[in-house]
């Protein structure tokens, strides 16, 4: 392609207030197809609020999120009708929650969790649904034999991988991830990150990943956005931001990492 592709998401002036409190203030950026953007910052800096606004689950106080949809064309995520927004969340957008228990149905088996998004877009053939579920279990390195087990019998890392598979099964174009490696031990974290990196590059996903682990950000993200008290204090290429931080808060953040 010679022409520059269309941005996947156009964020303009997003502000979210909780009463008098500021969740996030005046945030604008573009996200391009295949791009992975990291959002880092201390806890309470508005990362998750921003993610909620971007994925359409949280109505911003002001500002807009434009999305280039496969099915609906260019749309305003918050200005469109509710059925469209909900359909997007089931098909083209994926949300991987910090706690996998928020994104999975614990009362039904792994296979049903995987199949739900397929059935919600009209799949009605049991054999096909099952085959697809097995395929995605393999993608995230969960044994096929676990398909009829309940997610609550899975380890934390497996639940997280299952949740990722549940989101990817309808081939979303953008995946929003919130702190997905927190609480996992380092080796599991490493495998999860490796898996994510592979999936992202193979499927050409655009990803926005919230984290306060700079190592995760360095490994996954092409671009980094540093937030503090609801505002973006620094943006840039990941290496640039981490190796040559300009803002005092970023400098503090980078210097706080323990050198192994």
């Amino acid at each position: 392609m010679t022409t520059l592709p269309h941005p996947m998401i156009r964020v303009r002036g997003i502000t979210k207030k909780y009463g008098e409190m500021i969740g996030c203030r005046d945030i604008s950026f573009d996200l391009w197809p295949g791009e992975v953007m990291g959002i880092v910052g201390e806890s309470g800096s508005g990362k998750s609020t921003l993610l909620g606004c971007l994925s359409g689950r949280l109505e911003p106080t002001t500002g807009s999120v434009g999305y280039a949809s496969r099915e609906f064309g260019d749309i305003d995520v918050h200005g469109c009708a509710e059925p469209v927004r909900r359909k997007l969340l089931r098909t083209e957008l994926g949300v991987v929650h910090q706690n996998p228990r928020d994104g999975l149905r614990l009362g039904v088996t792994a296979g049903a969790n995987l199949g739900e998004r397929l059935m919600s877009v009209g799949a009605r053939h049991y054999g096909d649904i099952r085959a697809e579920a097995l395929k995605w279990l393999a993608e995230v390195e969960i044994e096929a034999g676990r398909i009829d087990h309940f997610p609550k019998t899975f380890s934390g890392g497996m639940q997280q991988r299952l949740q990722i598979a549940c989101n990817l099964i309808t081939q979303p174009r953008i995946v929003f991830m919130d702190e997905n490696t927190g609480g996992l031990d380092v080796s599991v974290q490493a495998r999860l990150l490796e898996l994510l990196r592979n999936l992202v590059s193979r499927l050409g996903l655009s990803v926005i990943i919230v984290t306060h682990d700079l190592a995760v950000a360095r490994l996954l993200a092409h671009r980094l956005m540093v937030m503090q008290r609801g505002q973006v204090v620094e943006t840039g290429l990941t290496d640039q931001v981490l190796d040559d931080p300009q803002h005092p808060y970023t400098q503090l953040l980078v210097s706080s990492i323990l050198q192994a």
Partner: protein
Amino acid sequence: MTAATQTPPAVEAGYNYGYLNEQTKRMIRRAILKAVAIPGYQVPFAGREMPMPYGWGTGGIQLSASILGPEDVFKVIDQGADDTTNAVSIRKFFAKVTGVKTTERTGDATVIQTRHRIPETPLKDGQIMVYQVPIPEPLRWVEPREIETRTMHALEEYGVMHVQLYEDIARHGRIATNFMYPVKVNGRYIMSPSPIPKFDNPKLDNSPALHIFGAGREKRIYAIPPHTEVRSLDFEDYPFEVETWDGCCALCGATDSYLDEVILNDSGERMFVCSDTDYCATRRGQGHTGPMADREDISELTGDKPETQDKTA
């Protein structure tokens, strides 16, 4: 069905016709009309306290109280039988507060209140089935939040309904849901057909009768108007099927009816009989007999004893 403001002579003194006051009946009739206009949609209504506990049919008797007119003939079935405690009590109650004729014959009834079954005898034009519904929300199993289920109904987001069926097949190799089997009404709303066995689901499809459902505790009314398409949910490779039995009814020999298993004694002897007592009795009256019809020790099951004092009219 026309509003009866005059009280027939047989009615218990001190009670309004049909137990409920006229304003309440009018409110319920409005809800019924709305339910009929939007097949399968759950209409909220201001459910009243009835003289029985929730779970015993408070939704059903409010519907019956609102639609029974002096000319109606009323039948009540519980587990398919006319002679079980709840059926007898509800029938007596309405005989007392409306003075309507009661019957056990499906063909003679104009209003049939039921919990678990639809009669085997095909329903006719002009008949009304009244269901006592425990849990009106078919999505409750997958989604506990009421706001969310209402949104899902509004937006026709029903994919998750199939999760339940998927789980059945994954666990049992077939769709093992046997009652409250979800249906899609008129190509739009997904509806729970109350705890009738899935055996009865096909009887709802294009039925000439009007079916109205009342949930007393949850205060919802919904309906299937006559001649409306009712489809049971399924998968392409696991189509909807009804229960089948190997044998026939031990008393009347019927092979086309829903059979209940009855344990006869401590030595493990058992039999299968029609759950619909009226259907079974009618067939026996016509001379059909099953393999155990002549057994003396189970004669009480055939109901060949003098009728109890239940027939009020």
